[in-house]
């Protein structure tokens, strides 16, 4: 909801209420929902995938323990870095962390072991039977994985919407949850690839055999499953429509098709490049650049609504002089706006303080959202923190 310049405080409070209702910002997510059919569906498919993965890991651990240890450690750090990065880019109406974990687990266990892996094997075998082994090696992966893996991951978002209809409200929510589903898928797939690599030298030199795969998967991973699922997730929300995101079928279909196309291209790069290594490297870099460029555009297109929510939620605080107009603009703006706000301070310590004020203001936003806009003790404390930091008073806590 956009508020006119002459809006009264009551109008601003009303706009805040509407924004909080629409966005779902600050609402708690409860995983255990026995009356929700999606909860049972999620448990069943994740459970199947988890058991399959753990039994594979246990079966291969004695033979490839070194490589498994290295892969699990490396990808755990990778996942932690990604988690930090997502928190870094998502300043706005944040989703509950529990929901992101649920998304990650779906991608890691249900989408892989319970769905896509079985379908991939069958489709590749059918391609080989129908078109021959050479054709299947050239184009099989590129014409199987985009359909099986993208939909296996994307179907998780469908369940998450059913499990958290009050929280998943915008295309940006789909974007973020999709990214976490993709991250889970990526990590488990990478561990599986590392196990396969560990066996390529008959079980000898496991670290040497798998380290190349681990590094390559880490480098290319950013422009792979995480990215595909983020775009797909946004597309799925546009396709379905949500209370805060009107249905846009054309845009939704486009955003569902794009990651499938990117995925298919990525998996076919070896065949497209032929035996030329230079061509292969060029195509890989090109595919990554194009994919990242598309990702940035989708991010920009989807995040706008979230920024509007932040503005609507924080506008009454600006009207009550808790934050300044410049701080409101920085909070509801992009990275450049926040940077410009910080740079406006002349001295180094003032810039640092400006950053702290902004962080405290975001914390106030989260408290307001959790309190559904009410004036609770926690909200008042968060307001006091903004004022304390602005005044340069040391924290008593």
């Amino acid at each position, binding site marked *: 909801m956009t508020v006119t310049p002459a809006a*009264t405080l009551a109008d601003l409070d009303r706009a*805040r209420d509407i924004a909080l209702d629409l966005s779902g910002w600050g609402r708690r997510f409860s995983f255990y929902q026995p009356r929700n059919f999606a909860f049972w569906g999620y448990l069943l498919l994740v459970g199947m995938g988890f058991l399959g993965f753990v039994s594979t890991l246990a079966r291969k651990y004695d033979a490839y323990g070194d490589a498994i240890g290295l892969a699990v450690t490396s990808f755990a750090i990778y996942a932690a870095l990604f988690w930090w990065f997502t928190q870094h880019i998502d300043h706005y109406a944040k989703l509950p962390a529990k929901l992101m974990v649920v998304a990650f687990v779906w991608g890691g266990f249900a989408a892989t072991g319970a769905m896509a892996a*079985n379908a991939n094997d069958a489709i590749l075998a*059918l391609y080989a039977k129908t078109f021959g082994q050479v054709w299947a090696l050239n184009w099989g992966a590129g014409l199987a994985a985009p359909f099986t893996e993208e939909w296996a991951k994307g179907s998780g978002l469908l369940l998450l919407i059913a499990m958290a209809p009050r929280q998943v409200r915008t295309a940006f929510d789909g974007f973020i949850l999709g990214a976490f589903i993709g991250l889970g898928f990526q990590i488990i797939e990478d561990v599986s690839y590392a196990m396969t690599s560990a066996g390529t030298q008959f079980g000898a030199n496991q670290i040497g055999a798998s380290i190349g795969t681990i590094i390559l998967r880490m480098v290319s991973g950013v422009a792979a499953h995480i990215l595909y699922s983020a775009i797909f997730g946004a597309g799925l929300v546009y396709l379905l429509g949500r209370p805060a995101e009107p249905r846009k079928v054309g845009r939704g279909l486009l955003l569902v098709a794009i990651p499938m196309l990117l995925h298919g291209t990525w998996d076919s790069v070896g065949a497209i490049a032929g035996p030329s290594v230079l061509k292969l490297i060029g195509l890989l870099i090109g595919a990554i650049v194009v994919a990242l460029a598309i990702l940035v555009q989708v991010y920009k297109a989807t995040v706008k609504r979230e920024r509007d929510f932040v503005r609507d939620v924080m506008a009454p605080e600006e009207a009550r002089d808790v934050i300044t107009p410049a701080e409101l603009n920085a909070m509801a703006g992009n990275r450049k706006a926040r940077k410009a706000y910080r740079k406006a301070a002349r001295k180094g310590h003032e810039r640092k303080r400006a950053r702290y004020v902004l962080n405290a203001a975001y914390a106030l936003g989260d408290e307001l959202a959790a309190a*559904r806009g009410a004036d609770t003790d926690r909200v008042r404390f968060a307001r006091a923190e903004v004022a304390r930091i602005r005044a340069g008073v040391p924290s008593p806590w």
Partner: protein
Amino acid sequence: MPDPQTDMASAAAQPRFEPDERFVPADERWFGLDRRTIRPTLAVFALAILMSVVLPVIDATVPYHDIVTAGDVLQLEGNVTFVPEAGWGITSGLRAGHAPLSGEYPATATVEDGAMKFTVRTGQFHGDARQLLDQIETTSEALNRGRGVRVTGAPTTVVTEQGKLGASARVTGPHTAGVIAAFVFGTRGVEAVATGPSDAGSQSTATVLRMIDSISQTGEGKR
């Protein structure tokens, strides 16, 4: 900006009531379940069944016929080749001269004839044939944990038609018997495993030995 005349009182002191996250409206219940969650879940189940049941069943029902004809040579990664027996079926692997567009042949090839199965696998290895055989035994013991096919016989030396010395041993499993052979061409290790019914005749054994004897590496790979 707000109207200066507006009351500056802050918002409500108590959050507006929202029902519990698990609340299901009475008119949305179906046998205790939230009916709004049934359709999306069934859609996901349908997709899961398609992927995990329907597609594998279709694959299992579609026969595969790629029969070896006289003169066929199968090629693997690292320019390793072998001559499969005419009449056997190729279940994985490529014929020499039919490389994929990337130019890289796969690391494994398998041919089958009824219950008889012959698989050749290749990969980097630093050591000799006997060490490779030991490594294969160690890895398969760790993977199988005493179950499945195991190396049981004492290692013996085999020589291919190309004159390459290798190591081989007997393998046995539940109702299965066979032979495993290992060769090392420079830093390229090759493992050949043939398995079949325990009561397979001498003709099958001779066929397998012919295929093992045909294992070689072409000039490019040696460089």
